[in-house]
């Protein structure tokens, strides 16, 4: 799942966008370059995000097993972990949908 989205990130031309933000540098903002410096590429950002979503999903499913076993003392821990996992997944889906949308928009350009 990671690699197709990474490919999308490459296709959608983020470098072009950062080129636009170079205008801010031209306006004489000295801080802009310093902010841009730790520039991780979009693909690795996405895969990091996916990994953390995966970790929270695994945590929630661990806790679900513990609830079923009766070994978990605090059921609220499970509900909160599953809330966090659900939010993470929603965020992932929102980003994925945006990426696909952007990709389709670009594909439509050649028509």
């Amino acid at each position: 799942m990671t690699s197709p989205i990474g490919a999308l990130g490459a296709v959608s031309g983020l470098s072009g966008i950062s080129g636009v933000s170079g205008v801010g540098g031209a306006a004489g903002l000295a801080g802009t370059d310093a902010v841009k410096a730790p520039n991780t590429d979009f693909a690795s950002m996405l895969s990091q995000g996916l990994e953390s979503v995966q970790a929270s999903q695994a945590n929630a499913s661990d806790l679900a097993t513990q609830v079923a076993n009766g070994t978990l003392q605090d059921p609220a821990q499970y509900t909160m972990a599953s809330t966090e996992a659900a939010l993470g997944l929603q965020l992932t889906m929102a980003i994925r949908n945006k990426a696909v949308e952007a990709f389709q928009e670009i594909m439509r350009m050649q028509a």
Partner: protein
Amino acid sequence: MSTFNAIGTAASGVTVYRKWLDAVSDNIANMDNVSRTSESAFQARYVVAQEAQDGNGAQVGGIAYGSAEGQLAYEPDNPLADTEGYVRRPDIDLGSQMAQLMMAQRAYQANISVVDRAKESYQAAINLGRA
């Protein structure tokens, strides 16, 4: 974890207040314990809450114990009474325990509602990106 920080922070509060609820229920359950004067009385449990070490939320630093001496009660009919007719009872005040129960319960609910609001807020932010 860091993406939805407010949820984890409030969850640590929920855990602390659940432990307080546990301590209060333990105290109330053992309120009427009777022991011989040669033994120590049931010691009330008090939860020591403190700031979490990673700076996000709260944690239980430990459990403090109440008086082991308790109170001496004159109950000559009690089979556990000593030769002078005294037994030892725990030094637990039900009124204070009930007040603590209410505080712990309300604080637990407050933390849960923080989780709820944080979830709604994060969801609103995600929906903004979705439209």
